């Protein structure tokens, strides 16, 4: 069979452009974590969020200042990252207006993202491209797009659901959603994102509500704004959980259960995971612990690199992030939930 020259050229250029795209944006050819819904179902559930593409502008040239000049309130929420020897805090009241910061940490290009409607902060390696806000939502969650291929990436999935990189998974890095007081205590030398973003916004006000005290959209009992693919009433819609996904399944632990138990052992699918509460940052660190290696909570130490101590060494860390329960359950309907008494 003869292939027409023009068709051959078109196919070759498509393959080449995809190769170039994958080279500029580090991805994994298949998502590291099973996705509950088909890509078609996910695409069908995407809806307009109101602003158009880039109507919520990502920060592409972030500026930073010293912690002593930041003037943040102790209980103010920040998204913190410690990576490649660089420590930075991104105040939530700035990210609520921009949702993505295209930054560079120790020479590595990364995107720090935050979705106020699902209360989720995630970091991604972005290679030579940048990420932007598509203006679309999936399960109320920010749908990002990459400027190399225009593929669409729901933030919580980290998997492209449309575009040339459909089905590929982004490479994540751990960020911590905590208060300024806690972050500064752990990392006194941290740099802080300034309000010199290139845009004019009212950075003193969160248009959705308040985390201190809890109010507006962030109240645990308040309803989400947009329909979701799966509903689960085991917890109030906006209850905060620490979630992680693994090849064996997804799991979530409520903040209160994690704080009360200190170390949570979880059988997920046919494997085993350990979640360690970090009392300093009030977050959790997750490890794949297939041999159920015993961990002594008293022997754990918390520092700049996270948690260390007897039993932790040799375990593979798993990325985890805080999320509102309704959003976590909407993306991962089969999730395990630890909400207090028993796993």
């Amino acid at each position, binding site marked *: 069979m003869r292939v027409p020259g023009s068709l051959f050229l078109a196919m070759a250029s498509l393959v080449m452009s995809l190769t170039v795209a994958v080279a500029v944006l580090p991805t994994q050819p298949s998502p590291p974590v099973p996705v509950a819904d088909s890509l078609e179902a996910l695409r069908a559930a995407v*809806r*307009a*969020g*109101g*602003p*158009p593409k880039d*109507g*919520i*502008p990502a920060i592409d040239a972030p500026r930073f200042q010293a912690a002593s000049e930041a003037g943040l309130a102790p209980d103010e929420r920040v998204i913190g990252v410690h990576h490649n020897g660089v420590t930075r805090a991104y105040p939530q009241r700035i990210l609520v207006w921009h949702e993505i910061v295209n930054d560079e940490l120790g020479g590595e290009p990364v995107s720090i993202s935050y979705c106020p409607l699902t209360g989720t902060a995630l970091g991604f390696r972005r290679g030579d491209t940048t990420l932007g806000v598509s203006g679309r939502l999936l399960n109320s969650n920010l749908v990002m797009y990459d400027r190399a291929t225009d593929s669409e990436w729901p933030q919580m999935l980290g998997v492209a659901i449309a575009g040339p990189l459909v089905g590929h998974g982004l490479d994540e890095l751990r960020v911590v959603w905590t208060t300024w007081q806690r972050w500064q205590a752990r990392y006194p030398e941290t740099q802080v994102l300034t309000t010199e973003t*290139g*845009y*004019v*916004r*009212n950075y*003193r*006000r969160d*248009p*959705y*509500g308040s985390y201190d005290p809890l109010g*507006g*959209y962030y109240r645990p009992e308040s*309803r*989400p*704004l*947009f*329909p979701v693919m799966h509903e689960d009433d085991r917890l109030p819609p906006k209850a905060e959980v620490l979630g992680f996904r693994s090849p064996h399944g997804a799991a979530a632990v409520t903040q209160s259960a994690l704080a009360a138990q200190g170390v949570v052992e979880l059988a997920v699918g046919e494997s085993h995971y350990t979640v360690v509460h970090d009392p300093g940052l009030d977050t959790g660190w997750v490890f794949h612990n297939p041999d159920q290696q015993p961990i002594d909570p008293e022997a754990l130490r918390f520092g700049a690199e996270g948690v260390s101590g007897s039993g932790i060494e040799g375990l593979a860390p798993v990325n985890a992030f805080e999320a509102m329960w309704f959003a976590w359950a909407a993306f991962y309907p089969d999730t395990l939930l630890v909400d207090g008494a028993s796993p």
Partner: protein
Amino acid sequence: MTARHLRLATLVRTRHQWGALAGIALGYTLLYLWLSGDLAGGGQGGVWAIFPAWARILEARAPFRFEPVGLIELGPLVWTFSPLNLLLALLLGLLVGLNGLAAWRLWRAPRTCGLRGSGLGLLGSLPALLAGGACCAPLLLVWLGLPLAGALAGLSSWLLPLALLLLSLGLWVMTRRLPRQG
């Protein structure tokens, strides 16, 4: 000058009528700016202004919604100032004011004349207010909740043109029914 111009002119002849028009237009403008998020709380009591982003004056962040060029603090209020958003809000406010005056005149007119008011014009003010909230500031959506919020978000780009159309149409219908002399 056409007959309609004459009728429109009779709406605002006295000082009271000018005052009413200015009051309604200004009130609506402030309400629009508040609901669209340009005007909000967060001020720390001072009075100052900076204008660092004049280059973005024509940059749209949504249909009929433009990037602020400056930040103005007025006591407890913070105004992210966009000249084009302000002009749009004033235009809408003026149309709402004229609709209000026309509706008032028709309501006050003798019943025997067979004159009736039109709710169309005032109804037209609602899509603009909703557009303000639906487009970029979620405040109104948070109040409204589901399922209206999702629907409004998708329609947001049509709400403001719809408001302008309804307000203009309402004014046209009412001025046709107005007597030439007040």
